[in-house]
């Protein structure tokens, strides 16, 4: 089960560049590794990450097996209005993990 950590400033001034961080705890199993029984361990990765700001996509990424366990994203955006920043990670089974944070923009 994945566990996510996010960091969004609680408040900012309009026009400020803000840094956003997101880390999800995930094994990112490549599908190329063999287990102790000699059989391939099935692939199980987060393959997509999307961040939205009041519903509008501000950052997204496709992830591949070469990306290490526990993928960590750090990016910046401009604080435009108060509202909700939402994070979505999607794994190989199509399951999504969601996190949200509120930001107050003055």
């Amino acid at each position, binding site marked *: 089960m994945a566990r996510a950590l996010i*960091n969004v400033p609680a408040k900012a001034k309009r026009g400020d560049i803000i840094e956003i*961080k997101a*880390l999800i*705890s995930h094994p990112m199993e490549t599908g190329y590794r063999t287990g102790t029984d000699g059989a391939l361990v099935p692939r199980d990765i987060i393959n997509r990450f999307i961040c939205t700001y009041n519903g509008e996509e501000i950052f997204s990424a496709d992830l591949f097996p070469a990306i290490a*366990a*526990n993928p960590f994203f750090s990016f910046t955006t401009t604080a435009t209005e108060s509202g909700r920043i939402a994070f979505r990670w999607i794994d190989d089974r199509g399951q999504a993990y969601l996190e949200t944070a509120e930001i107050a923009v003055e």
Partner: protein
Amino acid sequence: MLQVLTRRMLLKTAAVGAAAAAFSRRTAAQASPKVVVVGGGFGGATCARELKQKGLAVTLVEANAVYTACPFSNAVLAGLRPIEAQQLKLDAVEKGGIDIIQKKATGVDPQSRRIALEDGSSLDYDRLVLSPGVDIRFNALRGYDEAAATVMPHAWKAGEQTTLLRRQLEAMDDGGTFVMAAPANPFRCPPGPYERASLVAHYLKTHKPRSKLLILDAKDSFSKQRLFQAAWQDLYPGMIEWVSLSSGGKVIEVDAKAKTLVTDFGRHKGDVVNVIPPQRAGEIAQVAGVADRTGWCPIDPVTFESRLQPNIHVIGDASIAGGMPKSAFSANAQGKVCAAAVASLLRGEAPAEPKLINTCYSLVAPDYGISVAGVYTPRNGLLADVEGAGGTSPVNAPPSFRAQEAIYAEAWFQTITREVYG
């Protein structure tokens, strides 16, 4: 386990001793080559003594009159041991016929094979051995400079920093929080932060039982992890919280004024804060040009000769020794291997393929010891683990076994300090 290792070491020492006898006969008629060793810690002092035993003229350059040993300094922190028990002098080494210069080495000229000392004098060498230990990389962690280290001690070079952190712990109120930042690999003494957390927990449990300990780690796993964590659950339930890298444990900034550590995802204020910061090879290694961009020194695993400068060998914590951890035991083993290699090279002979041993004991409580041992040999240009050799203490062992290992730990310290400084 200890006895097996000891027998192996005896065999190795016997073989090296035979080679040394051949050397002194053959070189008696020649001008004696000069070997200079910089650093009087476990690596340097061992190497100097071994070189001397092989009939070489050895000069040991060490700036400090007293060497404060790091192994067991966590016990000083926990009030289980006086700092004086860590303090070692080079008197006996000097009496053994080694020329000791108590000055700081400030420069190295690999071309003219000469080192500069702080007073402007210089020393010529045929072969130079650097055993400078580690330097703290101040400002590598934002906000952690020399001034911050007086508020949030690192205590990762034993001495005043150790006693400073000890005083802070003593002054802390019951119910306080001890916060530690543990670094990413590589660093001196891989199990050290966790031994420290254990012994601090022991002190708090016995003196300030309502207190808590928080470890913020830049790693997802650590040395002897299963043993440490099982022991924490047994001895200090609910007291120690370990936050791994993937749980947001990496400290990226320190705020010394606020006694606060900042991670990517939060701020953690402590009543006592211990920052174990990023490190690199000691300064003289940087000056000599034997450290690479990582800050550590790539070496040939057979001779410990630098891959960057000829005729300079690097041993101990400063070297990139492959699978070997940065420990006093490693430095001691490397000092012996390096001395044998230097003697061979000066005779124009090929150095023997070495096997090196390391054992690291950690105390989880005064009567609870755990250990990890490994055997290493050159493979593909690095020192690699010999598979199937060594190992860690069993996960399930009775208290008597842990008590026995705590006794072995103390015996190891007595043995190594006697061998190197006695």
